[in-house]
């Protein structure tokens, strides 16, 4: 099958609606959330329509079907990541996944490898989304551990020159993003994981912007934990993934406790079920997990390599198209070298909100603001940017619309 974004777009019903008085919808905000193909919408609604029951409970056929569908989705996620099935934990979001590990580490008692105290350090980066920064700030505050970070260069790359001193014997965890949601920068992981493992630290990867867009192999990446969200990967909202290496999940204490996650309970105490159930207290977001399974099956059918190549060619086209616009400044790498399809920019004195509003009037959906990475945008001296992000259903027509929209905004606000 050849990869054709125009054909793919037909699978996404929302992309054929019009916007702002009959304009064609040009959706360039997939970095915030992706649109959903019919197969995902159907999978989620079919679960409710035909199979709905509480998973892992109940002595009836519906409970069996629901459990099969839910565990089937887990198996799809595991294959998608080249992980083992018991390493895949369903959460409600990537944000919850990252909070899960941060809180779980905070629950670790002395003697547990995840236990933190005042002598320990947590290493993050300046380009983290708030969801992979604040949980670690909070963990540091609760345990007395020190929070440190890699800085970001003017080109929007991580400065790894102090890797060996920043990640040292005190480091218990290195948490970083695979791809910046502002800059599009893809972080090279090899040196970081090598150094982290050398000092006995674990590596937590925020893969929200990478897993939906490129092939991911958690074993090859040599990381320890990974988080991503379903809704950025053409899946439903309300479902995220927390992946961890089996031996580490076995030692990591739980975060949320309650039903389903136990092995035995008395009035005084409880013991835990093995992972992944140890981390899935309560009736999970079943229909959403099943929808995510359908989403990853869909992406696999389209081919993750194809999707990545398509986005790389769109990104190149967009970077070149934007580079000729006067006063336009790309915030982040200017080539497609180690970079994904998220392109942030500023436009002279035109504030991103005003630009975004103008683009919206033309049917073009972009994101504006600090993109939940306020320390990064402050560091780069741009309190807000306009961000276009592409996905498998975007075409060069969409990018042409954006480029002429930006030029139109210059005329409009220059009056």
């Amino acid at each position: 099958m050849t990869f054709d974004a125009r054909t793919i777009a037909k699978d996404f019903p929302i992309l054929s609606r019009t916007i702002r008085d009959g304009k064609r919808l040009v959706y360039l905000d997939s970095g915030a959330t992706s649109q959903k193909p019919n197969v995902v919408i159907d999978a989620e609604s079919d679960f409710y329509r035909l199979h709905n029951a509480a998973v892992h409970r109940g002595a009836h056929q519906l409970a069996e079907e629901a459990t099969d569908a839910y565990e089937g989705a887990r198996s799809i996620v595991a294959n998608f990541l080249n992980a083992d099935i018991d390493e895949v934990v369903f959460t409600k979001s990537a944000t919850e996944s990252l909070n899960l590990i941060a809180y779980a580490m905070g629950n670790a008692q002395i003697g547990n490898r995840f236990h933190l105290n005042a002598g320990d350090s947590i290493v993050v980066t300046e380009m983290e989304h708030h969801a992979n920064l604040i949980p670690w700030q909070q963990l540091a505050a609760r345990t007395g551990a020190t929070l440190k970070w890699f800085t970001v260069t003017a080109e929007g790359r991580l400065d790894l020159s102090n890797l060996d001193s920043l990640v040292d014997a005190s480091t218990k965890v290195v948490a970083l993003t695979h791809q910046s949601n502002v800059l599009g920068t893809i972080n090279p992981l090899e040196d970081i994981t090598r150094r982290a493992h050398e000092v006995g630290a674990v590596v937590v990867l925020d893969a929200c912007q990478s897993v939906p867009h490129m092939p991911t192999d958690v074993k090859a990446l040599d990381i320890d934990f990974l988080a991503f969200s379903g809704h950025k990967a053409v899946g439903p909202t309300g479902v995220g993934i927390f992946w961890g290496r089996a031996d580490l999940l076995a030692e990591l204490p739980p975060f949320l406790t309650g039903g389903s996650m136990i092995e035995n309970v008395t009035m005084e105490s409880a013991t835990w079920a093995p992972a992944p159930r140890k981390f899935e207290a309560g009736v999970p977001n079943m229909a959403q997990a099943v929808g995510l399974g359908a989403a990853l099956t869909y992406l696999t059918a389209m081919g993750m390599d194809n999707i990545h190549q398509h986005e790389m060619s769109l990104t190149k086209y967009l970077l070149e198209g934007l580079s000729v616009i006067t006063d336009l400044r790309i915030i982040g790498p200017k080539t497609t070298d180690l970079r994904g399809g998220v392109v942030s920019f500023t436009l002279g004195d035109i504030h991103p909100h005003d630009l975004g509003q103008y683009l919206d009037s033309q049917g073009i959906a972009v994101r504006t603001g600090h993109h939940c990475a306020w320390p990064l945008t402050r560091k780069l001296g741009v309190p807000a940017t306009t961000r276009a992000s592409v996905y498998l259903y975007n075409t060069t027509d969409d990018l042409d619309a954006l480029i002429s929209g930006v030029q139109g905004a210059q005329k409009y606000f220059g009056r």
Partner: protein
Amino acid sequence: MQLDNLYQEVILDHYKNPQHKKLNATYDAQVHHINPSCGDEITLNVTLDGDLVKDVSWDGMGCSISQASVSILTDLLIGKNLDQAQVVADSFMHLMQSKGTEKGDEELLEDAVALAGVSQYPARIKCALLGWMAFKDASVQALAKQG
């Protein structure tokens, strides 16, 4: 186009030539407000003389709506007493919540009626209110200082 309801000439003028956008060194109260959803920030100083709004000065960064709105506020409220300022602020707040159904009282709101179009864009109402919230906060603090 509908966008012109939002970006009236008056707004772009205030954005390009903001009034009282230079913090006065002396003041009774200074506040710093942030719009956490977009990162717009404002620092605003208020000086009272009894219940008279003697001076309002500010600095900040943000979109044309937030910047024009605070610029218009300074023109409107300096020289009014706090009761009159409250009447203006209430009227402006009401206009912002009108979802495009009202044009605003031009006699009372003057240039601020140019912001009426904002009420049709729910995501932008906070932009228009940033400076007004800062003024409310600062004037309460300044008044409290008088004892």
